[in-house]
């Protein structure tokens, strides 16, 4: 019915009014996804967006594809069911830092290690938006909110590190103020066979306004972020004069000397050196380090659904086309005559 090649961004916009707060970072992410969609070459009817609960999780309503706004934290399990049922679908999962790392943390771990071919976008605004502003698992320790008037006591987790420990085969980070970077990252995620995990730094203008500005604001971005590019050295700073070095058992940043490729300067390669290297990268946290964005890791590993289908094929080959009668009569039987 729909010819995927002729699809436009607006074909992916549903008729629902978008209801996020004015200025919310979610708008930019929605727009980026809608504009990436036509490039995937997948017909609309073969695309499914699954989400949990949270501001971010209203996302499926705004996509003119199949969509399922499920329950809090359970999107990974639901999306797994969709994909296992029909491996031909392109399945996208939307979650938040609360939905995906608080109530849903366990499902996230398990979908990642299973490597179901689903693209996961985790909108990290470091706060519970929908329930009006309590701290989340990524909130900074000490954050004052209605549920932590004296400051949160909890040490935050880093979504990328959790994804890597969960043996994710594709791990990336992007941010809501850079449409181009989002587009590239989402496309890379879509291309990857297996679970793709993408953390998106997202601005909640109501409850955690501009929390990422110290990292990604235009003025500081060059000094406080590193854009990872395969084959490129880890250099940053407005004049690319700073580099990331490995000093034996940890990492340091220092100014580049005159030489072109000083010893110990790391060169990015998202496809190699797992598990060691992506973990090193993931441990770079602001303000000690610039924040890496881009693809941390991508490795090929058979997807869960492909292995499942293979088991079915092999079983069918081995046992022939089975009939119910053969099933019923398996095992010991006797006749009453």
């Amino acid at each position, binding site marked *: 019915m729909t010819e995927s090649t002729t699809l436009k961004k607006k074909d992916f916009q549903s008729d629902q009014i978008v209801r996020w707060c004015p200025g919310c970072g979610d708008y930019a992410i929605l727009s980026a996804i809608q504009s990436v969609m036509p490039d995937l070459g997948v017909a609309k009817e073969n695309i499914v967006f699954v989400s949990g609960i949270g501001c971010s999780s209203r996302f499926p309503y705004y996509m003119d594809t199949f969509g399922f*706004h499920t*329950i809090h934290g359970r999107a990974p399990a639901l999306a797994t*069911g969709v994909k296992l049922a029909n491996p031909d679908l392109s399945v996208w999962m939307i979650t938040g830092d609360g939905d995906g790392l608080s109530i849903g943390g*366990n499902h996230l771990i398990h979908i990642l290690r299973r490597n179901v071919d689903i693209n996961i976008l985790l909108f990290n605004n470091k706060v519970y938006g929908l329930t009006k502003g309590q701290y989340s698992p990524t909130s900074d320790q000490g954050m004052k909110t209605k549920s932590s008037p004296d400051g949160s006591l909890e040490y935050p987790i880093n979504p990328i590190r959790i994804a890597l420990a969960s043996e994710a085969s594709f791990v990336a980070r992007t941010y809501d103020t850079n449409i181009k970077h989002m587009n590239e990252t989402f496309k890379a995620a879509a291309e990857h066979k297996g679970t793709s995990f993408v953390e998106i730094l997202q601005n909640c203008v109501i409850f955690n306004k501009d929390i990422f500005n110290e990292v990604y604001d235009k003025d500081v971005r060059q000094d406080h972020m590193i854009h990872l590019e395969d084959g490129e050295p880890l250099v940053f700073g407005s004049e690319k004069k700073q580099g990331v070095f490995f000093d034996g058992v940890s990492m340091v940043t220092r100014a580049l000397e005159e030489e072109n490729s000083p010893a110990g300067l790391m060169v990015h390669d998202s496809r190699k050196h797992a598990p060691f290297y992506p973990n090193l990268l993931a441990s770079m946290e602001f303000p000690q380090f610039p924040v890496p964005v881009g693809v941390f890791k991508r490795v090929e590993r058979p997807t869960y659904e492909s292995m499942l289908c293979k088991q*079915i094929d092999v079983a069918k080959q081995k046992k022939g086309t089975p009939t*119910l009668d053969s*099933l019923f009569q398996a095992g010991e039987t006797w006749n009453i005559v």
Partner: protein
Amino acid sequence: MTKTIDRTVLENAIIRFCGDSGDGMQLTGSQFTTTSANLGNDIATFPDFPAEIRAPAGTVPGVSGFQIHFSSRDIHTPGDQPSVLVAMNPAALKANLSDLEQGGLLIVNTDAFSKVNLKKAEYESNPLEDGSVERFRVIRIPITELTHRAVAETGLAKKEADRCKNFFALGIVYYLFDRDMNLTLEWIEKKFKKRADIAAANRLSLIAGYNYADTTEIFTTSYSVPAAALPKGKYRSITGNQAIAMGFVAASKLSDRTLFYGSYPITPASDVLHELAALRHFGVKTFQAEDEIAAVCAAIGASFAGCLALTGTSGPGICLKSEAINLAIMTELPLVILNVQRAGPSTGMPTKTEQSDLLQAMYGRNGDSPLVVMAPATPSECFHYGIEAFRIATKFMVPVILLSDGFLANGAEPWAIPSSDSLPTFNVQNIAAHAPYQPFERDPETLARGWAVPGTAGLEHRIGGLEKADITGNVSYDPINHEKMTYYRAEKVARVAHDIPQLEVYGDQDADTLVVGWGSTYGSLLTAINALNSNGKSVAGAHFRYLNPFPVNTEAVLRQYKRVIVAEINTGQLDFMIKGKYNIATTPFQCVQGKPLYVSDLDKFIRLHL
């Protein structure tokens, strides 16, 4: 095996084998079952697993048992009390003696009654000597020693030789009930193909047991239980867990849809996962999830994507699934939820049976959240309800909870193997694209919305757990709409009543007293009522397999009787539902002991209330 002797012909007998978990009692029991079934007996069996994986040998918690009821008439339960008890050690005796019927036959392995073993079983004195077994006919046999002697020629190590003693015991009982050993001998050859020495030892042991019983004439009487007049056909023995798994696969074949099973292991439901995981060649997709929540959610996802979606667990797992079941109710997707009930609350007694999750099935979710509830009544009926649950779920686009229990799950009976041609087909249609497609349009008869499966161009739509506007399915907070949708959800389930069989009355229809039950108690109730009728007592029975909605004639049936006894293995859950729904005074019969209802208890209670 040559000597012909006189035998007392019995209509039926109940044997229980019991011993340590390592003693192979389940195997012994199932061999006796197969042999008896082949002889044409009707049979019903029930294992009694220990709660521990392998509790310390010789202790009471480590005792494993297997009860067989076999008969020349049709029977419906594994029996209340065994008439023959085979006890392989003191702990087994301790755990089972109180169940042996007065004057019953007790076969004990005297070799196992050492001081150490008595202590492990926490016996202060030897029960074989202190009068504890006086009320029974006791046959004392040094089974261990005799087995060792019988297998000596194979040169097996002591430990392996020891393992053969269950076959010695089986041989004795085969003699006692005049069973042919050939099937078991064949089985031994096949099973131990790769260990000729063990095959030989087991064979020798079995034959030695038989011959010992024969030659020593330790039994003053021996018995025979002739074949039953069962309908002709091919049979196999089947447990509820096996039957229900086959039912689900049949539903998949009949409707030409992939079966998806999301589950997380839990006693006594795990075997359904094991059964289905072995059926990849039927295209079955099993998914062992990280927990019960993920299991049900994956199933809901699979349902959305067009599979016959199933999730299964036991009570504590239903607690965890309840939030997601509500999502299926709200999104009106077909889903079958199997609950193999066990004794609760909380972790309770995982290996024991109970019927105490009925009200949870009905009401265990926030909001007004109606769904369909069914409960098969026998192990082999589980097959039918595996199909039926999916027929209803897909026709009405509604979740169905199937209530099995530990007794049905592990209890076995002969199953007249159906021919696949005799099974109903049911058509499940995805809706086709049409414009304008409205996700919450309904079929005027069933009130079901259409199943709009991803992959179908033109049917792109969004659903979720928020209240939906009638027809369009858009999110809606409109008060009147919410009320409307609430009643749609209820009415849809209510209409299922027109699609299911009426409630049947059995026994003496004109009686004053009607005994109702539901699910797995059927065998006990039927047996009790038949027996009362045979004894000239007027009483009728009716059994619920459909708990929500109730069959349309339910109120009419109940009101025909002066007294309605409601029998169940809980503190009164069906009873509460009947009163809550129909305002009918009832007489409850409850027994909450983690075991099936005993016919004898029912008999006593019903007589009191006639």
